């Protein structure tokens, strides 16, 4: 049949999604900055390889795939697959990152414990903390990684400079990693996979050498063509040193003579706090909180996470609607980043603020609520399914009715023996109906039973009467009957 439609070529699409379908101008960072905080081996993969991975998953059983991988790494095991021993432990660690996120802050804390700074230095530290924190959330994250809105040049420059000052890598590297995280959330390809434990997703992922088997890629062609991103990546190391350490020292030193306090408090400690806050999004936001939009994956909403991360704590929403410039929807939820972007747009410094339709957002909420409700429903008894009940003759019913305490309602035979004494309307009524069709009496001729009554009744089903139409939905039947009564009156 030539009628069949072309199937979209996965390899080609993956190539587009990974950005490897065309030659991108390579930006080489000056000096050691190129490798700074980079997990380069993670991202060097071609689209063909990605599709191959996928096909392998589809065509091979798990056992076969394990076998294949065993063969592949039989002779040479990658360092990340070798156990930690006394002789190779240093090979597991990404030393550059360890220095930047562990040793330097440790040194800073040690020095801070011995030195009391000027209160002006503390204010400076806090101000810089807010500025570089917002650069990460509003700039790196929502601006570049998700393109949730468009920035004008001054805003871009501000975010690029102060973002570098928070020592989290260049925009290019950071956004690439983040896009991979969204593309492969909770899988092995996710660079900060939350399923590997709290500490791995917090800091472990950047302190250890990753396994090259789990390489992934995302398209960042739009970032590479951005001159600000290019500039920042090229001069990353010098920018870090200047923005993170020299600038605060100079301000504090020239302003009120507190060079050392500026360096320790507004420099090292401040960048440490921001680093930890950002790591919290990867760990805490996948660990504590509620999942009002989707509980298939780990992201969660929690006000505490939002508090330490400038509003990035509503992570369940964010993973459902990544390119929405908001993270919190309600007025009482804490999201200063959203407010910042909104204010920038009002000042004409940002534009094209992207939001998802309320329809789509509500759909997600309701679907999740439905899912929860269905789970709760499964825990309860709702009565046997009519189709699974045995079919009885009229004679069989008559014979057993008196002895077993059977009542016919809506073509379904119910065993009410154990309930006779508990009947709120009295024993006499229910006894008088034994062996009879009490449909009308139940539906309102005698008493229009409550929902609870219907639920109880459904749990007493034993059989269906032959040649009758069983009415499973007694609620609707009752409503019909009552409506009829109203018409007659």
């Amino acid at each position, binding site marked *: 049949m030539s009628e069949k439609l072309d199937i979209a070529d996965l390899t080609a699409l993956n190539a587009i999604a990974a950005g490897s379908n065309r030659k991108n101008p390579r930006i080489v960072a000056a000096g050691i900055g190129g490798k700074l905080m980079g997990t380069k081996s993670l991202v060097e993969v071609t689209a063909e390889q990605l599709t191959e991975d996928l096909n392998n998953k589809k065509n091979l059983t798990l056992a076969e795939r394990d076998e294949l991988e065993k063969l592949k790494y039989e002779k040479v095991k990658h360092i990340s697959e070798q156990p930690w021993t006394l002789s190779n432990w240093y090979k597991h660690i990404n030393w550059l990152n360890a220095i930047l996120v562990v040793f330097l802050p440790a040194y800073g804390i040690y020095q801070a414990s011995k030195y009391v700074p000027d209160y002006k230095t503390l204010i400076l530290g806090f101000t810089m903390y807010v500025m570089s924190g917002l650069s990460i959330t509003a700039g790196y994250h929502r601006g570049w990684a998700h393109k949730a809105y468009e920035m004008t040049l001054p805003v871009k420059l501000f975010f690029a400079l102060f973002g570098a000052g928070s020592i989290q890598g260049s925009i290019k590297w950071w956004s690439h990693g983040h896009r991979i995280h969204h593309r492969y959330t909770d899988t092995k390809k996710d660079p900060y996979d939350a399923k590997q434990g709290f500490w791995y997703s917090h800091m472990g992922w950047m302190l250890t050498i990753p396994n090259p088997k789990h390489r992934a890629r995302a398209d960042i062609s739009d970032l590479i063509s951005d001159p600000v991103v290019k500039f920042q990546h090229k001069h990353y190391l010098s920018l870090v040193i200047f923005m993170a350490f020299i600038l605060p020292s100079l301000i504090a030193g020239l302003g009120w003579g507190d060079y050392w306090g500026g360096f320790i408090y507004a420099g090292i400690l401040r960048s440490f706090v921001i680093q930890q806050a950002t790591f919290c999004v990867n760990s805490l936001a996948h660990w504590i909180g509620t999942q009002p939009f989707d509980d298939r994956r780990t992201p969660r909403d929690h006000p505490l996470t939002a508090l330490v991360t400038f509003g990035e704590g509503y992570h369940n929403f964010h993973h459902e609607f990544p390119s929405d410039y908001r993270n919190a929807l309600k007025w009482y939820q804490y999201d200063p980043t959203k407010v910042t972007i909104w204010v920038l747009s009002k000042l004409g410094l940002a534009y094209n603020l992207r939001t998802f339709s309320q329809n789509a957002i509500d759909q*997600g909420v309701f679907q999740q609520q439905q899912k929860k409700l269905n789970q709760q429903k499964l825990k309860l008894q709702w009565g046997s399914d009519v189709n699974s009940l045995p079919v009885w003759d009229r004679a069989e019913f008559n014979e057993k009715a008196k002895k077993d305490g059977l009542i016919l309602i809506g073509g379904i035979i119910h065993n009410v023996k154990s309930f006779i004494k508990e009947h709120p309307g009295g024993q006499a009524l229910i*006894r008088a109906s034994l062996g009879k069709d009490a449909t009308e009496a139940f539906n309102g001729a005698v008493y229009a039973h409550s929902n609870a009554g219907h639920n109880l009744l459904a749990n007493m089903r034993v059989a269906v009467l032959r040649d009758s139409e069983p009415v499973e939905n007694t609620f609707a039947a009752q409503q019909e009957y009552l409506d009829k009564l109203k018409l007659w009156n």
Partner: protein
Amino acid sequence: MAEVRYRVKKKKDDRFNNANQLKNSKIKEMGKRKRDFLKRINYKHFFTVLICPLFAIIYLIKYSESILPKNTQTFWFSVFYFNFTILAFTSGYHKFFTHNAFVTKNNLLIDYFTIFGSSMGLGSIKWWGSLHRAHHQFTDDVEKDPYSIKRGFLYSHFGWIIMRPKVLSFYNELFDEFCKITIENEVETEIFDNEIDKEFIQEKQERLEYSNNIKLLMQWQDKWYFVLFVLTTLVIPALVTKFYCEDSLINGIIYPGILRMFLCQQSLLSTESICHFKEIQITIPSQPFNDSNSSINCNNPLMAIITYGQSKQNFHHEFPHDYRNDSSKVSFDPTKWFLNVLEKLRVITDVSITPKDLVTQLRIQQRQKVLNKLKSQLNWGTPISKLPLIKPDEFKRLISTSAHKDRIYIVISNIIHDITPFMDQHPGGVPLLKASHGKDATKAFFGGVYSHSTAASNLLATMRIGYLDLGNEEEVWDKIVVEEGEDTTQNQRQYESAEAA
């Protein structure tokens, strides 16, 4: 000719007479209404609910006394007497006589209920109980519900007790039925031959005797109601205050007597007004079990104290036989505590409690109902059954025409989607969409390139324009059943529940 004129004249006269008649009848009606109004006032309750409290308030103002008694003994006696009498009402009048929430053979307890319950001034058991049953059976009915909230907030709070009910004949029937003595022969219609039945007959006779005794007591109380009211509201508090608390007689009548009664009355009356009035947001109203009537659960803890633990009216209206007012263990409910103690002491038996599962079921059904309503307000995309069938060739030809040059059509799960309006919003970028234009991207959408979120699937559904006709009708039908069948046949039937009732 003359005849015709005469006819016209007569017609005019008729009309004139009619108008006059109408006028007269209207004047008559108004006069009748005036007389009826005076007739419709229930003077007994007018005295207990309005005159007495007014008297007390005027007394307080005139002699500039404080609202709380100065004598500590009197104060503590008032507090005790408040709880003592209101418990007789909530557990006696309400739970025992009206809702049969438990059984007791202890005459002392029943006497306590009947005697001290009348100190509320809200009528005899016969009167209050039958009206309350009518309220439960015909909730919100303007005619039949004695304190229907639809007749206004003030009427449901206060008006109903001062005025006689409008449809008196209907209520008279209820009154009669409420304490009619059942004669054995009336019920005994069928002869039972089983052993269980024999047991049942014996049991029934006992129960008949028991219920007839109670009904006799209610008739007696109705007869002597006013005497009992004066005794419990004025005489007893006055005497206790005078001789036990060593205070003046008038203080006894004012504080533990009338002011206490007034407080009790307001607390009990507010359950029928505030707890049925959704518009007052300060009570934090919710309807977790059934939103088809006006009863609400007031979640403001202050309301529980004001109404003496009866603020969860939505629960109570769904489970009136339950001796509690809320399924939660920690809620403020003195009546429940009191009955718990009595049950521990084995004074009362057969206390009716709704099984936990039943409560949960109803909660779930109500939530489902609300959810269905909310869901129905959203755009879920055109259902498959209503999409036009388009042959692949036709589709290919269609998209190759110049009119569709700048548009993007992608097929996913055999459904044709027009992605054009969403193009720029796609988080993965436009090039991916362009590369999939006119192709089947099912695999790519569901994980081949990106494992899309539920939100993305929802968005996609809103962009449906057609179904690809591959000549496989069965497959289409299966899909319709999967997507819509569940909604229309099974699910709805099962969960329509709440909507139906």
